[in-house]
Every structure is written in structure tokens, then in C-alpha cells.
């Protein structure tokens, strides 16, 4: 039987990692750093979660490890793009490739297996049967909106993404704010990782969710709440594929075709909306002090 309550909760659980990834993207890109490395940061986070939790027997240490593992790659992205002024997409791509190899290497070192870890029993507590971390993305999105609109930090971060030269001319430390934006995107990627599937690390387990998160961020027009809601659209689209057999209308369609649904949806959304959204004006622009 199709249980709507169960469906809604599962959907929330599946939406959460995408939403955290999207929020991470919002922080980074609001500061003007294009972050396609979210995927790699999430993947790194998933490994570090399992490793941290399994080694210490504590899920919370696992969460901290996940955040550290993601922030480590975020820092690399920051150093490469902000300090060394490399093109953001090039750096992001490199980090995604690095994360794929690094996690396999570390898994081999830590657990003697390359493509998956042993099962990890130390997972975050569940509420209503789902990961407790899945309940926080909407509050965090609302917090983000408040932070951007009302605080000095938010105002300055936005100014760095819109016109870093103007911000610099007013004495705003542009490099610092950009770093903070990127590092926070790592923190959110770590949250995404700890929400995704904390029971085990499996090679390439993020399966493009970092990219879907970016699609959600763009669909949400770089606004935290809208990005979170767009993530739910993608999350629930994926959830549908798991409930396919219980839904009369969908049960006759090939499961393989159904599994492509979230990705196809992402493509359509991007094709239809990408021209209409407004990225921060200096998003992806390499900023150099004293140049205009």
C-alpha cells in the first residue's frame, strides 16, 4: 500500500542532502565563487563521516569529520580560485576528480577495501524513522536569508559576489569574505554527506547529487529558501522512483527510465530557467586587488 506519510518523510530524507548542497552553493556563489566542487566535497564528506564515526564509535564525531573532510576540499578550492586566481570551473572539476580518487585511496588505507567500507552502525539518531539532520534544511535556509539580509556579514558577502572592486574600495576584505563563503559551502557539503547515507561509504555514492544541488540553486535563483524548495522538487522526484511499484500510474513504466527522472527534470529545469535567473554579477570572476 502507498503510504503518503511514509512517502513524505522519505522524500524529506532524500531532499536533504541536495538541499544542503544547494545551500552550500548559495554561500559560495553569493560571495562570487562558482562552486561545482560541491559534488566532490560531498563525496569526501561521506567517506570522512563513516571513517570518523566508525573509528570513534560516535555519530557526532562522524558529522564533525564529514564537515572537516568537505571543508578540506573547500579550502583547496578557495586557495586555488581566490589566492591563485585559477578559473573556478577548472578548479572545481579538478577537485571533483581528486575527491573520487582520494576517497578510494583513503578507504583502502583505512579499511583495506577500495570501493566500499564495512557497514557503519554509528549513524545519526532517527526521528519519525528518518535521519534527524534531514529536518534542519528549511530552518537553515530561513536563517541564511536572515543572515544575508540583516547582518553585516551577509551584506558584505553579497557585495563581494556582485562587485568585489566596489567592496574593496570601501575597505571590505574581499578575500576573507570569499574564503568564508567557500568554507561555509564545505560545512554544508559535510552536512549533506552526513544526511545522505551514513551507514556505509560506497565509491561514487553521491551519484551526481552535488550537481543536482547546483541545478536546484540555480532554479532557486541563488535564494536560500527557493533553492531548498527546488531541492525538494528534485528530492521528491527521486523518491517517486522508489515508490514506483506502489503507484498505479507509474508501475508499468520501465524502472530504468523512471530512475532517469530526477536527472531529466534537472536538465529541463536548467534549460528552461537558466537564462532567466540572476546569478551574482561577479560570480566566477577572478578578483584581483587594485584592478578595475
Amino acid at each position: 500500500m502507498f503510504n503518503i506519510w511514509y512517502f513524505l518523510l522519505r522524500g524529506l530524507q532524500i531532499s536533504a542532502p541536495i538541499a544542503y548542497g544547494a545551500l552550500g552553493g548559495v554561500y559560495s556563489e553569493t560571495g562570487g565563487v562558482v562552486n561545482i566542487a560541491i559534488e566532490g566535497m560531498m563525496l569526501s564528506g561521506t567517506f570522512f563521516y563513516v571513517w570518523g564515526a566508525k573509528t570513534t564509535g560516535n555519530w557526532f564525531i562522524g558529522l564533525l569529520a564529514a564537515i572537516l573532510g568537505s571543508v578540506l576540499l573547500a579550502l583547496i578550492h578557495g586557495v586555488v580560485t581566490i589566492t591563485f586566481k585559477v578559473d573556478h570551473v577548472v578548479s572545481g572539476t579538478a577537485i571533483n576528480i581528486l575527491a573520487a580518487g582520494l576517497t578510494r585511496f583513503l578507504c583502502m588505507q583505512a579499511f583495506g577495501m577500495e570501493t566500499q567500507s564495512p557497514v557503519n552502525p554509528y549513524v545519526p539518531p532517527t526521528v519519525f524513522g528518518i535521519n534527524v539532520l534531514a529536518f534542519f534544511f528549511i530552518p537553515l535556509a530561513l536563517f541564511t536569508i536572515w543572515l544575508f539580509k540583516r547582518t553585516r556579514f551577509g551584506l558584505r558577502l553579497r557585495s563581494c559576489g556582485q562587485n568585489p572592486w566596489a567592496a574593496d574600495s570601501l575597505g571590505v576584505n574581499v578575500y576573507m569574505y570569499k574564503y568564508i563563503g567557500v568554507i561555509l559551502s564545505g560545512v554544508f557539503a559535510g552536512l549533506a554527506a552526513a544526511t545522505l547515507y551514513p551507514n556505509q561509504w560506497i565509491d561514487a555514492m553521491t551519484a551526481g547529487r552535488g550537481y543536482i544541488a547546483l541545478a536546484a540553486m540555480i532554479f532557486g535563483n541563488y535564494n536560500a529558501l527557493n533553492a531548498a524548495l527546488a531541492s525538494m522538487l528534485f528530492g521528491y522526484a527521486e523518491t517517486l522512483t522508489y515508490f514506483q511499484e506502489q503507484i498505479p500510474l507509474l508501475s508499468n513504466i520501465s524502472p530504468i527510465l523512471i530512475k532517469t527522472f530526477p536527472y531529466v527534470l534537472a536538465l529541463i529545469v536548467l534549460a528552461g530557467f537558466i537564462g532567466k535567473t540572476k546569478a551574482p554579477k561577479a560570480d566566477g570572476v577572478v578578483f584581483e586587488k587594485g584592478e578595475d
Partner: protein
Amino acid sequence: MVNSDTANEKIPLIELKGITKLFPGVVANDDVTLSLFPGEIHALVGENGAGKTTLMKILYGEYKPDKGEILVKGKPVRITGPAEAVALGIGMVHQHFMLVPGLSVLENIVLGSEPVSGGTVDAKSAREKIEKIMQENAMPVELDVDVDSLPVGLQQRVEILKLLYRGAETLILDEPTAVLTPQETEELFKTLETLKAQGRGIIFISHKLDEVVAIADRITVIRRGKVIGEMPVQEANRQKIAEMMVGKPVLLQVPVPEVEVGEDLLVLKDVTLVEGGVKKLDGLSFHVRAGEIYGIAGVEGNGQEELLQVVSGEIFPSSGDVLLCSVQVCGQRITKIGPLGRRKIGIGHIPADRQKQGLFVNMPLYVNAAVGWQWKDEFQHHGIIDYKAMREKAASIIQQFDVRTPSVDVPANALSGGNQQKFIVGREISFDPSVLIAAYPTRGVDVGATEFIYRQIIDEKVRGKAILLVSADLEEILALSDRIGVIYRGKIIKEFSREEATPEQIGLYMLGVKEE
């Protein structure tokens, strides 16, 4: 408010002593000394690349000087960044505004100096403070709109409010009138007089000599990084300043000979362009005759860019027609012909942005000699490029149009802006088009090169060509045009003949105050 007592003291607000700044291969500032007193407007004039902006960026902390000393109110200081400059009471309005789109006017004003209470930006006290400043200086602006939605004149006002909000006593204005209409310029000058009366000091960078003479108390001329002279405004006149800037006698007014006009060569009929649901051009019509320069005046963003694209063929209008009469064709409807096709039938184009559209900046000059005209038989034989012919072409443009370059092999970006522009003008003219589009032909070009380019354009008119001139510089339009069309919201709302055109009249139409 600045204490009025300071206005009477004779300690300068700012003293720059022996400032030298080296960039790789260039001495941008060479032992420059400059002072600014309270209640004074000090104009800093010089050609593009003379080092005015560099000097001001040093004062504002954006560049570090290699040598020299800065004194603020008699005390030596080290200014390591804009934040220090602001703390010392120095503020700068950059030539390209430093506003943050997507942020409100209020947010732009407080950015970097936000009042904070309880962890959040205290918008209420900021608003009170700004409203007080706006009232004292008669500079009202709406605070809650996106700064990007304001017209240029108001954006500049926001820039000045930013400085006053930070309590600046020294205001540096870099080419503040370059983007303003005559009316807006007048408003600005009123504001500057008010600020001066409060005892603030203003450094006014410009190369518009009329304005300098009108507003400044003292004038310093720099050329190639060096101070050439300093004088009180009473001793200055335009001719003298221009010669000091260029280093040789200059003709400020290029004579425009009377030419008998012929038939219509370029006609736009009721051209409308809708982009993204917005009418960028709205039933725009005009015609340019043989032997005539037709100038388009208007505040930036009223459809000039789209008009240029429609005439060059980069975009096709949603409705209406473009007609051409040239050596090759006559009376032909060219509405749906692209840029290459239009060049082939006699339209030459000096594009608005030489770096983006006029040149391949990283490619050698000889390649750039054929850009836009590469299809010509002289440059290729059965699809094989004839580089020798291109080199010859480049050499002849360089020689004929006085382009200063070490050789035809250097990349285009090795040339100064003025020489790049002369090269483009030379290239377009040398292919002998019947209609010449001249978009912002002297933007960012120094006085000497400007005079040269004006002469070339006038020669084309004498040869019976039709010239469409689009420019943000009203002086330029008045100096060259036989007829002037004022563009406002995508429409030519008024045409003037040379005799009846005055800057004030045109300005009123530019702002849409008057409409036919």
C-alpha cells in the same frame, strides 16, 4: 559637517610630495607634488594615460607608491588601503562607479561602515544619518530601490553620499562629468560648490577643459606622469591647458566645411526592437544623406547600443526597415542582412568597444588590418590567406593614419588606446564604405588622437559619405554633426540642425523633459 574654522587655516588637507610610481616598463608617476587646501577645488588634468588616476589611487590607498610622501593635515601618513584612506577623511568616486548592483541605495551607502546593533545592521540609524546628509546638501535619493535601477546622475549622487556618510573631508572625483548630461553636470557643480563652502577639499580629475575652467580654483596639468604646471584658474585658459597637456599646439575646434548634401544613403524606417518583452527601440526613424554627419545624442541606455546593432546587422529589428544606397546597391532593403553582408555592400563600422569588437587584441596588427574585410579578394586566393597582402595593408594604414607602433607584427593590445582607435578608423575608412558608422569614435582617446580622428571623419563627409555618429560626448556631437537626433527610450524624439542645436536644448530632450 566640517568645522568651518578649518577652512581658514592654511594647513593643506592633503600634500603629495615627490610621488613616484613604476609599472613594468612605464613610469606612471614621476616625482609628483600636489596639494589641496580646505574649501578648494583643485583640478587635475592630463591626457589619458598621463597618470592622473594612478596618482589618485595612490592617495586612496589602492596603489603603493614606490617613492614619495603623503601628508594629511600636515602629518605624514602611510595609506595602505582604502580603509585607511577613509579613516583619514579621504574618499574617491571612481570613473567607473563602485556601486554594488542588487544592493539597495542604503546598503550601498553603508557598506563597509555599517552601524551594528544586536548583531544586525542598524538600518534605522543609518537611514536617519543619511537623510540628514541628503537634506544638508540638497541631494535627495530614494534609499530603498536597487541602485542599479537609478539613472547615472543619481548613481553618482549615491557615490558622493557614500563619501559624506564616511565623513570625507577630501573628495576625489575621477572624470565625474564623463557620463552626465549638461543638466546633470550643472546639478553636480552646485553640489560641489556646497561641499566646498563647507570647507571640504575636492580633487577634480577631467579632460574637459571648459568644465575645469568653470569649476576649479586651481589647476595642475600632468603629462606622462610628470607635473607640467600648476596655476590658479585666473591664469588659465583652455588653449594654454590643452597645449600643456599634449606638449604641442592643439586645435580645439576642428573646422567643418560646408558640403552639399546628396540623396539618402542610410534610412531607418519605423524600426522597433523587442527584446525579452521590452521595447528597446520604439518606432525609430531617421535618414542620413551623402555628405552629412548625423549625430545621435542621448543618455546612455536609451537604445543607442541596440540602434548600432540594428544598423550594423548584428541583430534584426522586430519590425520596420533599414534601407541602404551605396556604390554597390541603391534603395535596397537590408533589414535582414547580417554584418558581413552589409560590409560587402558598403557599410563600414567603427565599433563602440575597440577591445571587444574592433580588434582581436591578442593577434598581430597585420591580421587586424583585415578584420571584417577578410573576405576581400586582395586577402585570399581560392581560400588561401595572403598574409603578405595583409601586411601591406597594415603598413599602409599605419603610415596613412599616423598609428604609432613598433611594427605590424606586435599584437593589437601592445598599442595605446588612441593608436588602436586610429588603426580601426583607418581600416574602416580605407575600404571606402559609402556609409560609415562611428560609435563612440574617441572614447578614451587623448586630445591629439581625437583631433586626428575628427579630421578623418570630416574628410569622409567631404568625400560624400554618410556618417552615423553615436557618442556619449555631447561636445563631440555638437562639434561634428550636421544634424542631431536625440534618442530617448528607443525613439528619436527630436531632430536639430547644426544651427539650432544648443547643449541646453539637447539636454532637455535627452532627459525626456521635453517631447515633441
